């Protein structure tokens, strides 16, 4: 209870200071909006469906881009994790590529694909593929060897071995990588969407800028944080917790 109370007080104070500063009118409202202006913008955005459409478009891109990343990353990570040659060559390349911010892929994507959906997807995939791959590789290496041996021993081989044994066995080790991959994909998507007219949340953010509507900019930022938090903090956390319970890794709750 104390914990919740502290948080409520903190956020109330934060909004209070914000309201006070806005009330003092040190800056014009298009630079420093009021909290109620932001709330109005949020409500208006949902009311005229523009937020819903943006969320829909962005989430569709996320599903597609992140889905491709996970599928590709699994194959790549497994290959790199189980083959010495690939590990030394491709593995090294992947690690060095990870220091490249994903938005750096955008110029290349635009030249290749034009100002299209594909360009954005490309950026999303490049943004999250590496962390998914590295997570898979890590999972493959840290997964206890006994499961692979037990699987082979019981007659699993090839794809069945991967699907029924190696993948589930490495899940607890790759789930944090998958989570990180999602966060990267989300960041890449928003940056990608900001570049051109694309209907997503990123574009809504830029539209606020173009219209000198700071309330909308802040409103969309809050929306992006909220969606990120919901997926990251709630979806992945609960999957992780359930996994740990099932495996008997979690402390009794």
């Amino acid at each position: 209870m104390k914990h919740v109370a502290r948080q409520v007080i903190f956020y109330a104070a934060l909004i209070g200071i914000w309201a006070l500063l806005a009330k003092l009118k040190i800056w014009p409202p298009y630079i420093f909006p009021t909290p109620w202006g932001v709330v109005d913008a949020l409500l208006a955005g949902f009311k005229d469906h523009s937020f819903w459409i943006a969320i829909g478009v962005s989430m569709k891109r996320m599903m597609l881009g992140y889905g491709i990343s996970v599928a590709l990353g699994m194959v790549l990570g497994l290959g790199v994790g189980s083959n010495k040659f690939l590990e030394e060559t491709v593995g090294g390349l992947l690690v060095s590529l990870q220091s490249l911010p994903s938005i750096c892929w955008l110029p290349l994507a635009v030249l290749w694909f034009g100002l299209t959906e594909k360009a954005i997807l490309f950026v999303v995939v490049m943004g999250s593929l590496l962390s998914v791959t590295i997570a898979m590789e890590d999972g493959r290496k840290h997964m206890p060897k006994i499961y692979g041996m037990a699987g082979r021993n019981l007659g699993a081989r090839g794809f069945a071995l991967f699907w029924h044994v190696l993948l589930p066995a490495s899940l607890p080790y790759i789930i944090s990588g998958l989570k990180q991959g999602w966060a990267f994909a989300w960041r890449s998507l928003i940056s990608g969407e900001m570049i051109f007219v694309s209907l997503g949340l990123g574009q809504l953010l830029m539209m606020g800028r173009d219209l000198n509507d700071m309330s909308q900019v802040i409103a969309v930022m809050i929306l992006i944080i909220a969606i990120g938090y919901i997926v990251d903090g709630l979806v992945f956390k609960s999957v992780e917790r359930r996994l740990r319970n099932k495996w008997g890794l979690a402390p009794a709750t």
Partner: protein
Amino acid sequence: MTPNAHNTASEPVFFGDHRSTARASATRWKTGAAPSVLPLPQPVSDVPKVSLHGISLSYKTTNGSRLLAIDNIDLKVRTGEFLCIVGPSGCGKSTLLHLIAGLHKPTSGHVLVDDNVVEGTGTDRILIFQELGLFPWLKVGENVEFGMKMKGLSKAEREEKIRYYLRLVHLSQFKDSYAHQLSGGMRQRVALARALATEPDVLLMDEPFAALDAQTRDLLHDELERIWAETGRTIVFVTHNVREAVRLGDRVVLFTFRPGRVKREFQVDLPRPRQLEEVDVARAAREILEHLREEINKSLEVEYGVWP
């Protein structure tokens, strides 16, 4: 007993000569769930089920030199036989099971099952690992189902066999539990059920009871013996516990310390079921232990640089 210390490895030592009395004494069986008429072990046939021909295994150590783990082992396991392998730790006995299971390839020599050379894993030989390797993401029933699923049995068939084998190891109520919710002995029995469910001809067991408390272990000895008798499987059982080997085995093979070789064989013809505390079991174990002691000393010398 006929042994003397100067026997060569090729001449097996015999303990007792009571195969016939094994049947007569069957009423002493004490396992709670045992059937009223005890299915007795199939007479061990002379047909070899598993034969090892000149098996050697060496591997590169971290400092680049080659270490010979197993040296030229010739061994035949008869169909339906319960064979125990004992030896000091590091004698390659577990590795040998992995070779028979087809998880690794020997450096030289080959393993025959019936008349077929072992090229890889196969569900005719199932290994129960020391660490068990139960799949934590599957329920007990699904663990038992796994091998059958890989073999492509139909759902109905699998369901029936899950029921049958879980009943066999007295775990029927735990079908929907996860392995981590069970005790050590129960987990051990899940592993046994999972292995048996694929209906292998050969069951390979790698120190399966080493980590269990004494009561649980005694109970599982009884159950394993009963299941062996009921199913007529060929069992190769690796242990460092000589008494356990004598308690369970038709034959006990003693391995030397690194590199692993067959030092001596002991035929155990004591009546079944045996008890760990029986005088005859203890006497036979002591005899084997004397030979094992030499190897343990050798291993201590190598690993600690001392004679104790």
